[in-house]
Structure formats: C-alpha cells, structure tokens
C-alpha cells in the first residue's frame, strides 16, 4: 500500500505538470475566452474597414476565427514551458511558432470562407477572403506573441507560488525539528540518585523503598508518550510535577519544603508537555540541593489578565554555591521551546536576587483545540 501510494504521487505530479493551467480550470478558461471578446471585435472592425467586407460578412468570419485562434494560442504554453525566458534564442523560436500559427490560421480562414460561401447570402466570400490574408497574418503573429507573453506571466506566477509553498513547508519542518530537538527528557541523574536512595532503603525501610519504586514508576510512566503530543492540559502537567516531587520528597526529606498555589479553573488550559516540570526540577537541583539546611519551592499558577496564564516557580538558593554542571541549560531549553511554540505571544522572565530564584511565565490561556498546533506551519 505504502509503496503504491508513494509511486502514485510522482505520476500525479507529472500529469499535473502536463496539464495546461488555463484548460485545467473552467473558470480560467472562461476568463481567457472573454479576453478574446474585445480582440474579435477589433478584428471584425479591421475586416470591415481595411478588408472592405460588409459588417455581416466580417462578423461571420471574425467571430469563429477568433474562437479557433484562441485555442491555437494556448499551445504557446508548451513552448514557453520548455524554453525558459532567459534563453537567448527563445524569441526566435517563439517568432517561428507565431508565423506557423498564423499561416495555419490563414488556412483555417480559407476553409471557413469556402464553407460559408455555399450559403446564398455569403456567396463570393471565398474570393473576398484573399483581401484579408495580410491582415490575418499580421494580427496572427501579434496575437500569438501576446499569448506567449501571457503564458510566461502565468508560468512565473506558478513558480513563485510553488517557491512560496516550499518555503512554508520548509519553515514548518524546521520548526518541527527545532521543537523535537528541544523536547525535554527526564534527567537521568535524577533517576540514578533515586535508585541509590531505593538501594539504601531496601534494608533499612523496605516499605518506603517499595513506595519510592512505585512513585518513581508512576512518574516515569506519565512522562512516556508525552513527547509525541504537542500540548497537554495543565492538570496533566501538574500531576506529573506531583509525581516527581513525591519522589524527591523521599530523597530530601525535611530538606524539601513545598508551597503550591493553583487557582481553580486553570487546569483545563493546555501547555506544551514537560514545560514546567524542568523548572521545578531546576528549583530542586540548584536550590534545595545547594542548601545544607534545606529550602523551599513555591509554585503558583494564576489566571492572569484576560486570556493569560501566569505561572511562577520560585525557590531559595545559596548564591555562593559552586555552579553545577548544566546550570542554565534547562532554563534555556524551556525558553527556546516557548519561543518556538508561541513565538512572541508568551513572556519568560528569570530573576535571581537576595538568595531567591524566580522564573515567571506568561502564556496565552488556550483550551485544547483552539490553540494553534505548533507542528503545522
């Protein structure tokens, strides 16, 4: 199935590329033919004034001839497509084609006149037609060259359109891969430290060891599959944070104090997955872990100004602590993900002063479905 679908696409593309842009659309064909209306009126006038034909005879000739020549001129598309305008010899090729086309037109006029002259009211038209041959030839060449110009305009339009489409596609792809690259992963050192705690607890406190195993499993399970989703409800992200904190609580014990303040009604808004968890993890890694006597983490989520979600993650820390490896990388990653997802519709603010570290986020408050899916351009 896959293979056939894969093969069908180039074929479709080929057919599409062979199809005439005017013939393939009824609306465009109608527009094109209506453009020939004034042209046929001019030709009719020329037949009458220069050719000396009566108005009736001129009309009987000019209208069908214009209709025929309108279709003949469409053939210019094929030569325009195969000969790029930049080619130095292109004008010579088109001129040759124009001469051939107008000669064919004269032949058609002759045939038409012969047929029409069998009607009693138009008798003698087959002899009179010879008078307009030069006129036909001249206007035929001119009209054909006009058609060539028209087709070049169409082609360049199409090319511009195609290029734009490709660019949009490329932008979408770039953005998608950007987001993929930034997707946060659970910090492996967190897991190693947890396993070490469990290892310590197995002999001293087996019940707590089991509890920690279960909490760690719950946390890891929640993170699974999140990477595939572009956004999740805030409630789900908070569940994940609670699972994470319940593990850290065993590890740090009384050293970790938690304060949470979530306004009701915000849980249904959507956020990119694993956006807040790294901020809380950061607060513990660089806050609590740097403080011998322990510290606190404060998480606050509010419905800010209309349609804004205001999120604060704050912790205390030791300003004199040695810099930890990877300091700032987690924050940078969150900032980049916010930029890639919301462009300029979000605010990200980091402040460290007087032993307090605060990250403030302001995101558009969006429900599932109404938010733009960040993966499409």
């Amino acid at each position, binding site marked *: 199935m896959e293979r056939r679908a894969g093969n069908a696409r180039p074929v479709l593309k080929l057919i599409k590329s062979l199809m005439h842009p005017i013939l393939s659309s009824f609306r465009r064909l109608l527009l094109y033919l209506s453009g020939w209306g004034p042209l046929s009126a001019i030709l009719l006038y020329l037949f009458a004034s220069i050719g000396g034909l009566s108005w009736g005879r001129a009309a009987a000739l000019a209208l069908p001839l214009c209709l025929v020549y309108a279709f003949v001129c469409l053939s210019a598309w094929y030569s325009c497509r195969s000969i790029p305008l930049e080619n130095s010899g292109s004008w010579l090729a088109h001129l040759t084609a124009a001469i051939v086309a107008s000669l064919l037109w004269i032949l058609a006029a002759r045939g038409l006149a012969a047929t029409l002259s069998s009607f009693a009211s138009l008798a003698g038209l087959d002899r009179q037609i010879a008078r307009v041959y030069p006129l036909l030839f001249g206007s035929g060449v001119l009209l054909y060259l006009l058609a060539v110009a028209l087709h070049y305009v169409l082609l360049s339009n199409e090319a511009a359109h195609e290029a734009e489409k490709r660019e949009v596609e490329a932008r979408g792809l770039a953005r998608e891969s950007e987001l993929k690259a930034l997707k946060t992963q659970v910090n492996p050192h967190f897991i190693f430290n947890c396993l070490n705690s469990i*290892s310590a607890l197995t002999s001293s406190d087996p019940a707590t060891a089991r509890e920690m195993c279960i909490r760690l499993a719950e946390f890891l399970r929640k993170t699974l599959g999140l990477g595939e989703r572009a956004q999740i409800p805030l409630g789900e992200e908070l569940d994940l944070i609670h699972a994470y904190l319940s593990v850290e609580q065993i590890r740090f014990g009384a050293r970790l104090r938690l304060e949470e303040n979530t306004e009701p009604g915000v849980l249904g808004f959507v956020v990119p997955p694993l956006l807040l968890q790294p901020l809380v993890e950061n607060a513990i890694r660089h806050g609590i872990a740097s403080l011998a006597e322990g510290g606190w983490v404060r998480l606050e989520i509010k419905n800010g100004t209309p349609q804004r979600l205001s999120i604060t993650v704050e912790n205390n820390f030791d300003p004199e602590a040695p810099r930890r490896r990877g300091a700032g990388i987690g924050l940078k990653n969150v900032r980049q993900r916010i930029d890639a997802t919301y462009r300029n519709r979000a605010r990200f603010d980091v402040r460290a002063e007087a032993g307090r570290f605060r990250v403030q986020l302001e995101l558009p408050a969006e429900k599932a479905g109404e938010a733009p899916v960040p993966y499409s351009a």
Partner: protein
Amino acid sequence: MKQDAKIRTVIVDDEDLARQIIREMLKSHAEIEIVAECANGFEAVRLVSELKPDLLFLDIQMPKLDGFEVLELIGNDIAVIFATAYDEHALRAFEVHAVDYLLKPFRAERFDAALARAKERIGKKLPASPEQLSAATREPGQYAERVVVKDGTRVHIIPVTKLDYAEAQDDYVALASQGRKHLRQQTISSLEAALDPRNFVRIHRSYLVNLERVARLEPYGKDTHIAILGDGTRLPVSRAGLGRLKQFLGEKA
C-alpha cells in the same frame, strides 16, 4: 600502619540515604571505624582537618563546596573514594588519583573492591600535586569562577570577580580581596592558568592583577612602571608585564 589500628573513615554526602547505604556497607568491615559523617563541603573540610581520617567517601555535587574543592583544601594525604551519580567527573577523579570512583547505585561487591584498593593505598601519599588538585576543581576547558582558601579550619570562598590581585610568596600565593589577604598553597603560574586571561594579567613575575582594578599606570625607574589600583595599592609592573597590560588596556579602550 599497625595491624590492629582501625581505618578511620569519614563519609561526606548531602543526602541522608546516600550516607546510610555507605554506612551499611561498611558494617561488615570490622577494621573500619566511622569517625564522622558530613552533609556539606564546609563541614567536611573542618572535620577532616580536625580528625585527620585515613579514608574519605566523597560525593561530588554538594552544598557549599563540591567534592573536588573539598579535596583541594584538605590536601593529598587521605585516600578518597568518590561516590556520585554522575559519570562525567570520572576523568577528573582519575587526575587527582582518587582510589576509586563509585557510580550510584553500586553493589556490595563493587563497594568492597573499592575498599580493598583503599586499604592498599592508606599510609602512602597520594601522588597528586596541589596543582593537579587545583586543576581538577574546574571542568576541562573552563576558567575558575571562584577560588577557595582554607584558614585553619575555616573556609573562604572568593569569587574571581572579587579578587583584586595575587602575589607570589614562595610556595604560596597571597590573594587580595576586599581589603584582606588569603594564603593559598599554589604557584602563581598555576593560578594564572586557572583564571580567565581576559580579566587577569600577569604584570610581573610575582604579580597577577584583575584588569578591572587597575586605575592608572605610572613610570617608575628606567624600565619599570607602577600600576595603581582603585584602592591605592601600588604594584610593580615589569617590562614584559607592561607589554601585556598595554595590549589588554588598548583593546579595551
């Protein structure tokens, strides 16, 4: 070392449960005596200086001072076994000639093997030089952000931004910061190598100065100059030092 003497051991880890597992694994070794447990680097430096243990179990990421800074301050006559969840510090641990590097979590057999190696090592001096210990406190390819000094059992942390200048004094360097001088066992060249050359310039065989502190230069004698710092301190500038200084001040201006 006498046969009946116990191996006096200190455990340093900020996590209660991490210390607990080491304690538990040491239980079956009667020759080990745990003389102290510490939850941060300051405590570790103080207690090790006081108790002079034979063996140290040392975590790396801890509050106040990290494991390598602790090691730099306590010197090289203690056998050290690192215990950490991070495998990326192993190379630096090797450079300071640590006895072993345990990755958390570890099994009892692995722990016992580390302990066996430690026993062979105890009593022998670590071949790591103060320079090697100092170099290991930095991640490879990075400049120091702070310098730690020990004054008796007290530890001072000097952020490099607060370091005014350093003066060589035999085997030591005197670090001038905020009107005080701190002595540290280190050559001035190795200190120079640890600091960002865009901020610290060797103006003299014996002096390294923080560029931001230099207020002006005055000629002094035939070949030399004097650098005058913001607080009025006058430091000699050699001819080579003047060239280096001019190059930097010229770039900054």
